[in-house]
């Protein structure tokens, strides 16, 4: 196999990897804060907000991501009356589905993190006179973040792999280009290249999260 031929496979795949990485970055950056807001909503003393958030999490975790993707990309425009205003770019619609789906998982991770924090931390902050906001931001969140880092890392790697579901809603990404070359040239090599690229991204993530874990270590 010549170098030129190899590059003719690799370059479109790298192009596709761009979509993969872009989706990953947008989804992770938006779903983590959204997930945290959902956790707060679940813990809210205002019952309707809490129930709404719990229902949302239940639906998002209880139905397949693929179904949600199909719903957002192809289903929304079919809704009566409002459907015609919901014709989104496929990539945008798919990204939205990813953000909402992953925010539900992150919400559950953060909820677990908050439960693990000793109530003595709240009491110590209270007797020192810290406000609720100061307690949350300066005492609770740093500890919650440290505790939840390993499951967040795990979820991030899952997200990288789940981006391949874009294939099903016809948004070109890494796997799509790999499959195209496989069909065109009758070769299995693009699958290996694709696997290599996914592994490379996962490896990068692992390194970053391991670094964060070490840096935030306090035990």
């Amino acid at each position: 196999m010549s170098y030129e031929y190899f590059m003719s496979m690799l370059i479109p795949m790298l192009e596709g990897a761009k979509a993969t990485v872009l989706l990953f970055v947008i989804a992770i950056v938006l779903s983590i804060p959204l997930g945290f807001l959902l956790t707060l909503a679940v813990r809210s003393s205002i019952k309707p907000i809490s129930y709404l958030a719990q229902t949302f999490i239940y639906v998002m975790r209880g139905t397949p991501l693929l179904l949600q993707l199909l719903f957002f990309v192809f289903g929304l425009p079919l809704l009566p009356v409002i459907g015609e205003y919901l014709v989104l770019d496929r990539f945008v619609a798919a990204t939205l589905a990813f953000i909402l789906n992953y925010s539900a998982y992150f919400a559950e991770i953060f909820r677990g993190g908050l439960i693990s924090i000793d109530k003595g931390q709240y009491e110590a902050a209270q007797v020192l006179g810290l406000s609720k906001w100061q307690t949350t931001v300066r005492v609770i969140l740093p500890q919650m973040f440290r505790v939840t880092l390993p499951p967040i890392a795990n979820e991030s790697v899952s997200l990288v792999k789940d981006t391949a579901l874009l294939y099903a809603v016809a948004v070109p990404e890494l796997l799509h280009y790999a499959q195209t070359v496989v069909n065109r040239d009758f070769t299995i090599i693009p699958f290996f290249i694709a696997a290599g690229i996914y592994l490379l991204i996962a490896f990068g993530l692992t390194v970053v999260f391991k670094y964060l874990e070490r840096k935030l270590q306090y035990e």
Partner: protein
Amino acid sequence: MSFIEVRNLQKSFGPLEVLKDISFDVQKNDVMAIIGPSGSGKSTMLRSLIKLEQVGGGSIIVDGDYLVKDGIYTNPTDSKMINSKMGMVFQQFNLFPHLTVKQNLELAPKLVKKEKTEDYGHRSIELLEKVGLASKANELPSRLSGGQKQRVAIARALMMNPDILLFDEPTSALDPQLTKEVLEVMKNLAEEHMTMIVVTHEMEFASNVANHVIFMDDGKIVEAGTPDEVIKSPKELRTKRFLNYELNK
């Protein structure tokens, strides 16, 4: 006027009455020891003073201001002001594990009192020297022994310049050797006339350092007085039994 007046304090957890008509006074510079068997309500009573527990009835007056009047709490602004006159040390230390020793001391002065770095920076070092831990200023709490953690917790409470310190079984999580170093710090504070209320099982501390002792059992104050009265020559049978058990442990 007493610094703290507690009148007819009452509290229940569901049908279980944990505080039954508790009344006592604490004067400035008093060191009051509260003793009693587990489940007697002594910790709940102490925690009520700084609003970690809500009482169902009675009054708490701190430095002339009502925190609770006949079971009704004052507004949050005033209760915050009242609580700021008190510091608290917990059985489980409750240091912030993600902050260094020095940061633990400086967090509240910085955030709550909006002090400048020059002010709290000096004070934190001074207080760490006072509890013998200046060399640990930049360590994380996980690197300290239990006794060291508790001394840091005391220094952290002192950073806010409280008029009174509340101790909730400060040595119950420590082995005897570490207990000694914490009691030593508390004794020094007593000698500097810090006002303190100490819930404790350390009878020696109660006898030698406190000037008032309250014995609680079953949510009530059974006996109160000087250490000589309550510990050396108790009148009530329940006090005698408890002391017999504690002193022969």
